[in-house]
Structure formats: structure tokens, C-alpha cells
């Protein structure tokens, strides 16, 4: 796509977080190169981690800081095969964002990722419309299994 993998770009977003950055990563031509992913997480550490994981697998990916930005980016017309959605985020949390995206007719695979172990929170997340749930942290193995499911789904 013409942009070097791992390049950071300061987003002039409407996010409440002034330190929110968007990562753009071009496909590295790997086997997952056709898949596009959106990382939705307010934690900078997890943003870096998930961005790097996806990057290493050759998955084109974008990172946003909260649920509202995830919804807004879809409203702008962008589409993704995979959305990695955190639960606890400012402005709009992952449960609400998932609900809104499903109401909008977004059929992307939404994987809920959180450190919550409370059953009722997980159930609420599933009821909102996620396809699967993983405990943090996400590893290469977990991500590969998610990506394989997407490929077989297609």
C-alpha cells in the first residue's frame, strides 16, 4: 500500500485522548495479506502489541483508541475482516461499540479481547454480538487461529 510497516502516524482524530496514534501497516505479502484488521483498544501497550502481532503476520491493520472511533471509521466507509475489540475504553466501551456495529449491519468477525474474567461481563459481550472471546494477552497462536477461521469462512 506504499506505507512502511510499523510507521506511526499521529491521528488528527476527535478522540478524547491527545496521545492517540493510528498505526498504518501495509501488507507484507504474507499469507494473511488479504485480511484487513481494526484494533480497538485504549491501552497503548496493547495497541503496540496487537499492531505488531498483525504486522508480523502480514495483516494490514489500523488502530483506534475507543469504541466511538471504531464506529466512526465504519461510518466513513472503511471495512475490515477482523475487529479486535477491547471491553473497557473511555468514550464508548467495547460492548456498546459491538452493539452499534452490529446494528449498522457490520458483519466483520469481532473478537472480544479483555482481561475480564467475570462471567456476566463476558455474557454481555457475547450478547452484544462478538463472534468469539479471548483473554488478554493475545498471542501469535491465538491470532493465527482467528485468522484461519476468517479464511475458511470466506
Amino acid at each position: 500500500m506504499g506505507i512502511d510497516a510499523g510507521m506511526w502516524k499521529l491521528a488528527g482524530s476527535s478522540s478524547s485522548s491527545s496521545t492517540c496514534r493510528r498505526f498504518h501497516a501495509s501488507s507484507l505479502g504474507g499469507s494473511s495479506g488479504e485480511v484487513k484488521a481494526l484494533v480497538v483498544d485504549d491501552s497503548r501497550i496493547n495497541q503496540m502489541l496487537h499492531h505488531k502481532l498483525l504486522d508480523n503476520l502480514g495483516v494490514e491493520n489500523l488502530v483506534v483508541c475507543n469504541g466511538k472511533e471504531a464506529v466512526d471509521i465504519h461510518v466513513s466507509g472503511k471495512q475490515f475482516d477482523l475487529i479486535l475489540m477491547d471491553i473497557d475504553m473511555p468514550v464508548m466501551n467495547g460492548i456498546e461499540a459491538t452493539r452499534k456495529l452490529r446494528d449498522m449491519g457490520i458483519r466483520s468477525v469481532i473478537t472480544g479481547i479483555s482481561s475480564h474474567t467475570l462471567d456476566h461481563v463476558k455474557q454481555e459481550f457475547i450478547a452484544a454480538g462478538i463472534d468469539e472471546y479471548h483473554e488478554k494477552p493475545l498471542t501469535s497462536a491465538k491470532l493465527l487461529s482467528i485468522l484461519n477461521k476468517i479464511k475458511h469462512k470466506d
Partner: protein
Amino acid sequence: MGFVRKTALPLWLLGWGAEFLLADMSHLLALLFHQGVLDEQFLHLRQLQDETSPNFVYEVTSIYFRESENLLMNLKLLLTEKEHSDYTKIKVHVNQIMGSSSSIGANRIRNACVAFRAVSDQHNRVGCLRALELLEKEYNYLKNKLHEFFQIEQQRSLAARARYPLPN
């Protein structure tokens, strides 16, 4: 025979030192794993490091320490400033430290957060203060050890370059 001016040591000796420093790094990591301070997630983090992101682990852990420091400070204020603590805010901060600790493999800090969350759910102020003390102790231990680790890594990198200097 070439010499590195500052150390006045022959290049071949400095280069040999890279192996010893690598051993030091391995021993330190093994100790931290054995003590349960780190878990396999830290290894996953190291595996992500490559030529496109050669300082990935250092960058991620630096952000972790910076953010955790602020969160710990906030927790202290929440528990000491007012007569009645805001346990909702306390839980949010503890969850944040717990989440990021899981992400870098800081196992004992994560466990300390689990214990902290339990006493915070009970609105037990004394328990929370004790939990915070333990959390700070674990945090400082990890911070010191990783600082040591990255220092050795840096020295090893320098030593390796001395062994295989670039041609003029």
C-alpha cells in the same frame, strides 16, 4: 591489533565479553521466571522483536513503567487523600495495571492486582493500603531487574559490535 580507546581493552577481549553478557542475560531471565516475576508472555514479547522493531521490548516496557507509575501514584492519592475512597476509580486503575501487566508478562504484579481488586471489592481501606504496598514492592523489583536486563543487553550489543567492527 585494534584497541577500543576508552576501555584500552583489545577488541578480541571485548568481543569475547558478548558471550558472557549473553549468559548473564539468560541467567537473569531464568531467575525472573523461576521466581514467577515474569511468565511466558514476556518471551512472546521478545519473539515479536525483529529488525524492523529492534527495540520493541524496551519500548513497550518503558511505556508500561511510565503508565504504571502514574496509576500507582493515583491509587495512593485515592486511598490517602479523602476520608472515603472512590472504590470505582480504584478498581479502574487496578484493572488497568492488571491488563498491561498481563500483556508484558509481569506475572507477580498481575497477581498482586488480583488480590488488590478483591479487597477493593470489599471496600476494605486497610486491605487496599496493604495491597498497594505489595503492588509497589513487586513493581519496583521488576523495574530494577528489567533495568539491569536492558543494561546488560546494551553492553552486549556494544561488545558484539566491537567483535565485528564495520570496515573503514
